């Protein structure tokens, strides 16, 4: 072997590592593949949270969510990251009128949830109350916040774990939404 070639090896190793890192940069380390992606919504029938009435009468079922793209967001007042993402959800729900934002109030105190939304505004068209976390189990939710994109046929198309911010919205949500529109 040529002695000179030996000295090129470190450079070649470095370049291949750089390629690997470049590949790694494009991906989201927090993305968790979900068993539910590309499957229909699970069956459920749960009460909705009404901001002005003490008790809710109407039950919400998967049929209420079809007919447009919905963004289902699992949140709770006990979850600090939910407080962080809330203002952005309000903002994006105002600018994206074509999407219906559905909140799932996850294992929460209903009065606190109501106060929270009254104070900070609600981004949600409907709010499903999941007191015992059973819907969370059906969706395979690990914690709050988690957000699912559901297409107009009621198929789950994407799962996002963690806070949504402007960048995440632009880089992961928008491509998925435009691909299913």
């Amino acid at each position, binding site marked *: 072997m040529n002695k*000179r070639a*030996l000295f090129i090896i*470190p450079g070649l190793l470095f370049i291949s590592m*750089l390629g*690997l*890192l470049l590949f790694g940069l494009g*991906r989201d380390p*927090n993305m968790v593949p979900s068993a539910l992606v590309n499957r229909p919504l699970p069956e459920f029938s749960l009460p909705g949270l009404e901001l002005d009435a003490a008790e809710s009468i109407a039950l919400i079922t998967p049929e209420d969510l079809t007919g447009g793209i919905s963004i289902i967001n699992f949140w709770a007042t006990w979850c600090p990251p939910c407080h962080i993402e809330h203002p952005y959800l309000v903002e994006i729900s105002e600018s994206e009128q074509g999407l219906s934002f559905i909140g799932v109030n996850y294992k929460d105190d209903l009065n606190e949830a109501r106060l929270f939304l009254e104070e900070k505004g609600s981004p949600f068209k409907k709010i499903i109350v999941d007191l015992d976390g059973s819907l969370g189990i059906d969706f395979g939710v690990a914690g709050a916040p988690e957000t699912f994109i559901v297409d107009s046929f009621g198929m789950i198309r994407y799962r996002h774990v963690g806070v949504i911010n402007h960048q995440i919205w632009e880089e992961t949500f928008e491509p998925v939404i435009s691909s299913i529109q």
Partner: protein
Amino acid sequence: MIPELGSFSLILAFCLASLMVVIPMAGAITNNQLWMSLCRPLSSGIWVFMVISFACLAYAFLNDDFSVNYVARNSNSLLPDRYKFAAVWGGHEGSLLLWVLILASWSYAVSLFSKNLPLDILARVLSVMGIILVGFLLFMLLTSSPFERTLLNTPLDGTDLNPLLQDFGLIVHPPFLYMGYVGFSVAFAFAIAALLSGRLDAAWARWTRPWTNAAWAFLSIGIALGSWWAYYELGWGGWWFWDPVENVSFMPWLVGTALIHSLAVTEKRGVFKSWTVLLAIAAFSLSLLGAFIVRSGVLTSVHAFAVDPARGMVLLTIMLIVIGSSLLLYAIRAPAVKGSASYTLTSREVLLLINNIILVVSTAAVLLGTLYPLIHEAIYGEANRVSIGPPYFNTIFVPLMGLLAFALGVGTFSRWKKTSVVYLKQQLSKVLIASLAFGIVIPVIVTSEFNISVIVAVVLAFWIVFSIAKDIFNKTSNKETFFKGLKALSLSYYGMQFAHFGMAVTILGVCLTSHYSVERDVRLAPGDSETIGNYEFIFEGVSLQQGANYQADRAVITVLRNGDEYITLEPEKRLYYATQAIQTEAGIDVGLFRDLFTALGDERGDGSWVVRIHYKPFVLWIWLGAIFMAFGGVLAITDKRYRSKKTVKQSQNESVLSGSSSSKPTMAAES
């Protein structure tokens, strides 16, 4: 006003750094004394502006200036002042500022302690450091300025520093770690300067050695502090998790250790030159890789800052330019470098080469394990994620360290050029017999069991300690008294022995803690107790306590030793107001031979609590060993070999100034 001043200082530092890249280097190429000599004032100017910038951010934190976004995100008016100050480096932007401040400090230090350096070398070294400064300052100014403000709708209060970081550990761990990481930039800059000037000689190795030792000592302490912090703060009693971010701090340390040994060979014997240069480049490259992995979020880790691919892109570009060009330069220049001296298989040269091979293989194994999730995903696709856990790292790393410890003992008795095999056998057989005897008998008597991995580790620890003792005895035996003999030995010799002794101490700590820790997670109601060995832990109950920015459930656990009251431990579970995050604070009784570790878990309905009680023998030794190693590194720097040169070199330096700057630094000072 103050934050703008900080921002402005950063821009000025950037401008000066750009000048430091161009002018001294142009001076070195065209042999212009004035241009070269500008590197000193430029480096001090950069340092001054970085200090001003850092002070501005610290001022914003201490005065609760929440109009600064970074302050609002990482501080809170209730935060105690010491954490407000440490919060300066509690997030991505500020820690980057600290990183650059430390880089500027190292380059300023090089310009201060460079009286014995030829001016053209100093100019090249500072110019290379200038390139790194320019890259990181640009990175900070373009994507990560800590001084960005929201002047409308200024938040009334900050969202608070992550509670995990509200600890003494945050105050000391990052500065030490960065001093180490960034310190390797000096060895790197010297290597590049040597390649550029074509003067890759023993003098180059001698200039580099103290700087490498200093960076290595800082990194040793930094890593140990991080490990200690994880141990008492995370609340589950572990001290090393092979987490990607731990690994990226450990890899520069491993390569830095190899570099220290390889530099010794290059300085004393003039061989392995191109290998040493490669190690110097690798040590700093791995530091850059660390910065990239922590700040880009390519790997999930408890340490990672907010994920931002844009930042990762800039860092990748910096890496491509800095490392890529230096490896290109290496590929062009290094093949021409020739070693001169000859040596045999039993020489110290070869033993140090073995040390280097083991350390580099260990680094490669850690690197592979750290990046493997990425490799796996690149091959098998996104749906197949894997994580590489401690089993992989332990399986590979532990035997390699065993080999290293064995080679260390042999290396202690070896001589340059050639060691007589008869002499080696004669020395080593005594050490071997003694270490086998002590290493087998003591663990078996104390634990009354025959655990082979414990025995191997204890034998190796004694092997190191006895070779050190025997070598010191050999080196003093020809003097009139033992103490006269001790006085005659050089500080760098003591430095080496201290560092090696530290390795033995750490080996013992790691092995004994891993094998003999007793860990109990028990459910205790007030009045209940749990016994481990001759310690009885009585759970007295939990009370609510108020802290500055949190409230805590504080448990009181009375510990009895052999039935007598010994100590009261108070582990806490804190709820931080601003973030509503829960944080455990372990209650630990630190001892030289064992730690008693308690942490408070969840409350159960009936008034009982889950309590974690650990008995951890020799855990302190893990970090004690690191302190010995770092102390050894510092001792070696203070050796008068490096200081006495000053006078000799100074005159030489002057002659260089007056005459041709490209005159080869002679080895007159040697011998």
